């Protein structure tokens, strides 16, 4: 059946089977391969996208259910080609990754966290990313990256260029 999805601010349509997950649809039908397939049963968080600004597992939702939401994938985070968001840049600064497979999910989760909680404690960060499994880093540099991003965002006093929750 036909779906019409709002992805990274653009409306896109595809013909999908009703059983197709949003994750497979993003990857196969729209070429948005930054969302990754990890466990396909909602534990690892590698497939995280933002639905109306809230982190969600795109492996646990069908594409047809996503109709009507504002979907943000990792491809929608960088402000311009070759240019990183403050959070993405902080992940690079602290090396908050190794293989890069969980990274898009982590960046999206961090983006939502810092929008809602601009001054998170270490424990806030740890809890926010606890649904995203990273097998490489032991999380230390990811936590540091998010803390650094919070600090820089606070100093920048810039408008928050991220989708707001509850705008549906």
């Amino acid at each position, binding site marked *: 059946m036909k779906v019409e999805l709002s992805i990274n601010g653009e409306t896109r349509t595809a013909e999908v089977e009703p059983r197709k997950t949003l994750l497979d649809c993003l990857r196969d039908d729209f070429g948005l391969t930054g969302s*990754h397939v990890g466990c396909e049963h909602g534990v690892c968080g590698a497939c995280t996208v933002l639905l109306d600004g809230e982190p969600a597992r795109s492996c646990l939702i069908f594409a047809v259910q996503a109709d009507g939401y504002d979907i943000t994938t990792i491809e929608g985070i960088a402000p311009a080609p070759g240019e990183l968001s403050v959070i*993405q*840049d902080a992940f690079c*600064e602290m090396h908050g990754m190794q293989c890069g497979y969980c990274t898009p999910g982590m960046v999206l989760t961090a983006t939502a966290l810092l929008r809602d909680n601009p001054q998170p404690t270490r424990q806030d960060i740890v809890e926010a990313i606890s649904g995203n499994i990273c097998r490489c880093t032991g999380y230390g540099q990811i936590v540091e990256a998010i803390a650094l991003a919070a600090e820089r965002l606070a100093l920048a006093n810039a408008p928050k260029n991220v989708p707001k929750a509850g705008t549906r």
Partner: protein
Amino acid sequence: MSTAPRHLRYVSTNRRVREDRRFVAGKGQFAADVKAANMLHVALVPSPHPAARIVAIDTKAALALPGVHYVLGGDELAGATDQLMNGLDTPQVRRFPLAVNQTRYVGEWVAAIVADTRAIAEDAAELVEVTYEPLPFVIDPEEALKADAPTVHPPHGSNVLLDRTFVWGDVERDFADSPKHLSFRVVWGRSSTVPVETFGITAAWDPWRELLDVWASIQMPKYADQIARALRLPANAVRVHQDIDVGGSYGVKRGIKHTVLCGYLSRRLGRPVRLIEDRLENMRAGDAHGPDRIFDVSLAFNDDGVIRSMKMRALDNAGAYAGRAPFQLGKPIGAIVGPYKIQSVEYRAQSVTTNKAVQEAVRGFGQSPTNYAIESAIDKVAAALNLYRVEVRRRNFIRKEEFPYLIPSGTRYDSGDYHTVVAKVLDHVEFKGLQAERDKIRQSGQLAGIGVAACLEPSGGNSSFEPLLNPKNTTSTWMESCRIHVDALGDIVTTVNTTSSGQGHETLVATVIGEILEIDPDKIRVVRPDSLESMPSNSPVGSRMAIMLGGAAFHAAQKLKQKLVAIAAHQFGAREDSVVYSNGGAATAQGDRRLSWLDLVTIAHRNWHLLPPGFEPGLETNHVYQVPTGGMLPTPDGRVQMYPCHSFEFHVVLLAIDPELGAPKIKRYVIGHDCGTVINPHIVKGMTLGGIAHGIGAALFEEFVYDDQGQMITQTFMDYLLPSSLEVPEVEIVHHCTPSPFTVLGQKGSGESGYLGAPAAISSAVNDALAPLGISVAKLPIRIAALGDAIAAARERASLRAAL
């Protein structure tokens, strides 16, 4: 040639890791991101039995499903391919990607469906009707050793893949001469590295070019060779694309059977064929489990805690096929005494087949289980003599001035300063304060313990364990390579001749070349040629790339610098050794004449008339680097130089246990780490923290559990538990640097750091916490339920005694 005195400009500085930019943008290129035109998809029919004869496979209904192209069974595949390589000389332990006549573990692939989409292939897999005749099976390795046990491979004659006893030194005399002895058993449960990305591969056969293109999520030495051999192709007909980002591996991403299957199907069907494991396929039949081991250890020691001799028997449950399991018993021989001066060792390595899934190389290649056994032994000596655990370690450590130090099994350790690292860590944690904190937790009604572990990370991956365990194997080099090309505009391109799975090799090679050529590493382009264009490589295994790729890049850069100096000397009419190279240019000793980088490049590329006689035009160098200290075959009595370098780590853990639930909580985690010269501090830090997290998993959470019916009962992330950010504490790292004398910059390996000591340290902490109850645990992982039950039983016994 003389060079101006030079500090390290780029090496050991906190430079960014260049790979990270693409990953934060979701622009990595992973195996599942590859799309070939007209690609078909594979799903697999798994065996529901641990052992069964395949009586018949009915594919009619599956083939009738629209979109299904083919159903492949084991007979056809075995007839058209050669069996997958065994590392050992066990020709009757035959292994093909699909089961042939018989299945040997639950989940083993029985048939492969090829369809237009993965979803259709999965639908069709459910329509394949396989008739099985269940056979007797064996899961337990000690059962598998018995004479009447079912044999997993009847033509092999028994379940024993390897049973070899090494004796290094006069073990019996040392045991007889020692006043004290103890014996114990510890068990390392089967876990693995379980990357978040499963294994994936796309194979495309081009009949007109006679070329098999492969895009795969691999970390595998000699991968193309093994594919070619099994598919009966010349190796130059297999082109592996190495510019694929691998979504985590830590050893396991080998995928030979997956690739042979897809390679065959692509040739058979004339279309690209892709297999991306789903999580279930990955967990039960990805052939990527880790060591599964019983250790029986005896020690002979003096009254002062000095250990004289050790007998270790390691019985490993290899699973259904040989895989890399037996060799994972061999590699730890290179550090069989850990950081200790144990004079003599008897080591019996036994590997048996059972009806469990197959093992693959896992981070440390068997060293972490061995370290757990050795460290358990040290704790037991301390307990037996009522000495401090750290003190017993100090008394047995090799001293700084004794390096290079030859251990009984033939490896010469490069360097280390174990006493200093331990002193720095104890100072950092304020050990007395830590003990007070533990006692305070105990007074609050919880159990609490401090764990310690000291261990080595052998690094610089050689393959000496292969000739050691298989005399037909005469491998004595395990080289790595680097090529540097400077184009006519003076821009540098260099190569990494393998895939990476997060280790930052592009950053590594650019940093080293930038250091030598005194050029900003960010200006160097790093490419990954495909396997046909590549120089020899053995991939990033065995904590080797800082040493091996770093070594190859260093020498290639030195050769390039030498060329530039020679060109300059020719222009100056001066001797090469009088020319001063700096910042990419070269000057006379007096400094009156200088040629810039671009001047020298221009001469090399355009001015034949200015080149020294006999010079090749253009500007390119390459280097193939042999493993330092490598090159010798084992002696007949089983001594061999295993890896060249030995990083050291010392762990201190404070852990509390809720006595009602049995739930352990890590309160503090400190590691002292010495891996010589660090090339990129961010990368080494990440590997160490990640290794500790992985070690916490192996110690407390992760296990592939089989029930008595041979079924694997932890096959999703709901029951195979990976540590999340809530389970991994903030880790404090205490740095120390003892350069290796055997490497180009003094660097050692760090890819397995943290993981090699964390399980031992956590076990030590749990046992310290349990000691007041008079109980201990001797099996990893230490599961909450088992811990809770043991604590409850101990308390019940105590209250019964009190009541009497």
